[in-house]
């Protein structure tokens, strides 16, 4: 049986195709991990974009589209996919995917483009509690993105620069819009880019950490979502949460999509 999980994020679409081969447990991942995901094209609506992404995924995985038994969606645009069988929340999908990859995980931190959240998960991968902020860009990837633009650094460089700094400059502004002016004034004061990058990522980490604290930080802790790729953020978050180890999946953007596909496979 083949199932699909589609994560309709605010910026990009992530798809995982799963073949449940019914032997000795582990289902086989047919498509998703390691494959480039589709950035959400601005001129298409969510359903059209999902159709294109899904067609591509099936073709590349050599899977017959009609043979996909169930398609579950998650993410900001999860209700807008007409061909989906069902949809689940980001919390449900994230917890499921994370616990599948790391069975001992209790706390899932999910930082994507427009949302950051902390999720409490039980051993079966069920989300039991969560705290997040979907109203404000502070504490999400777009905050870091806006600041890297102000610093004229690529997102990759941004994280690397931050790692080279050992200074702690507190950012006063919480709002992304205000923080941008604050970054500009730091640039004018000839503050090294390394230190500014760290100040920004420390600020995002502290906001995210405050959300995760609301559900409680219990080991093992895993970080999922696109911000995993920012090495500076990972370091800042580890420090903010005061944990020795922060688990990082190899393909952090796909964890929610994977959770979706798993849930679709386990529905009877």
């Amino acid at each position, binding site marked *: 049986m083949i199932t699909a999980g589609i994560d309709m994020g605010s910026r990009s679409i992530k798809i995982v195709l799963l073949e449940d081969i019914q032997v000795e447990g582990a289902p086989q991942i047919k498509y998703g991990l390691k494959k480039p995901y589709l950035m959400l094209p*601005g001129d298409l609506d969510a359903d059209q974009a999902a159709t294109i992404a899904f067609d591509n995924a099936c073709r590349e995985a050599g899977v017959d589209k009609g043979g996909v038994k169930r398609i579950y969606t998650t993410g900001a645009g999860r209700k807008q996919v007409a061909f989906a069988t069902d949809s689940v929340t980001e919390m449900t999908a994230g917890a499921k995917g994370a616990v599948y990859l790391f069975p001992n995980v209790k706390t899932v931190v999910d930082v994507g483009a427009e949302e950051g959240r902390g999720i409490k998960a039980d051993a079966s991968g069920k989300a039991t509690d969560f705290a997040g902020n979907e*109203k*404000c860009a502070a504490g999400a990837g777009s905050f870091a993105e806006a600041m890297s633009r102000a610093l004229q650094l690529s997102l990759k460089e941004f994280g690397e620069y931050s790692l080279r700094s050992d200074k702690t400059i507190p950012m006063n502004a919480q709002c*992304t819009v205000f923080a941008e002016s604050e970054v500009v*004034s730091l640039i004018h004061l000839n503050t090294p880019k390394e230190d500014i990058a760290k100040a920004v990522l420390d600020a995002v980490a502290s906001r995210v950490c405050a959300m995760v604290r609301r559900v409680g930080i219990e080991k093992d802790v895993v970080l999922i979502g696109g911000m995993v790729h920012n090495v500076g953020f990972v370091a800042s978050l580890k420090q903010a949460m005061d944990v020795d180890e922060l688990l990082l999946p190899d393909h952090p953007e796909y964890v929610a999509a994977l959770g979706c596909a798993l849930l679709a496979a386990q529905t009877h």
Partner: protein
Amino acid sequence: MNAAVMQQNAVAEKKEYWRWEETAWVAPDKDWRAAKILSCGIDVGSVSSQAVLMADGELYGYNSMRTGSNSPDSARNALAGVMDKCGMKQEDIHYVVGTGYGRVNVPFAHRAITEIACHARGANYMGGSRVRTILDMGGQDCKAIHCDEKGKVTNFLMNDKCAAGTGRGMEVISDLMQIPIAELGARSFEVDEEPPAVSSVCVVFAKSEALGLLKAGWTKNKVVASYCQAMAERVVSLMERIGVEREFFITGGIAKNPGVVKRIERIIGIEALKTEYDSQIAGALGAALFGYTLVQKGQAKQG
């Protein structure tokens, strides 16, 4: 894309739509040399700075400009802008009160007073003793203030954490829509029907939502209307937490944007008092009034 269009776009990109007009004014029929007490209020805000001169407790002149990269220079420039217009020197002024975000960084001020107190005092002068509720919509914050008939603050609430509902948020939208900020209000009424507010609170998210609406075929005016409505709803929710009491007065830069003001009036069902004064000078005006009173009472450090 042909070269001409590309060039046009390049020019469009360079234009600073958010840039609002800086103004300086001096009372044409008065002479400061005849005044017994000259007081000055300097409001160094996060986005704009104002200097107000008062001759014997009456408004004499003011200057409103963009805040520079450091507060002392912004204060000096704001004051110089109005003094140059009437040949005054700094030593002619008896008392200077600093207010606003950068109030402790006004090097020549005799005293610093919070902008909440100053806005209430200024609104009391501009709108009269009837004013009870003041909405100050500034560059990077928004305050709802209650005051008594003397302009003394009795209660206030503020949002300074989030750009939604502030002038800075409006500047972002102005740039995004490529419409000069002073025209946004009028443009927001050039719509066939009033659209609902954009659903995002955060300016960063509202920006992407606005782009999505344009792609979905909305006109720029309709998007601006939708954003003005969101801003109005946002500040009304702040005001409602302390209660709106008549009369109601709006200070700060956004008071000049009818797109937001009329929508606020529509939601709360109360019209804001109109004034002939520039709404942006309320803080500095209040500061200058405090300065005048202090001199009068002989409490000034130099008398």
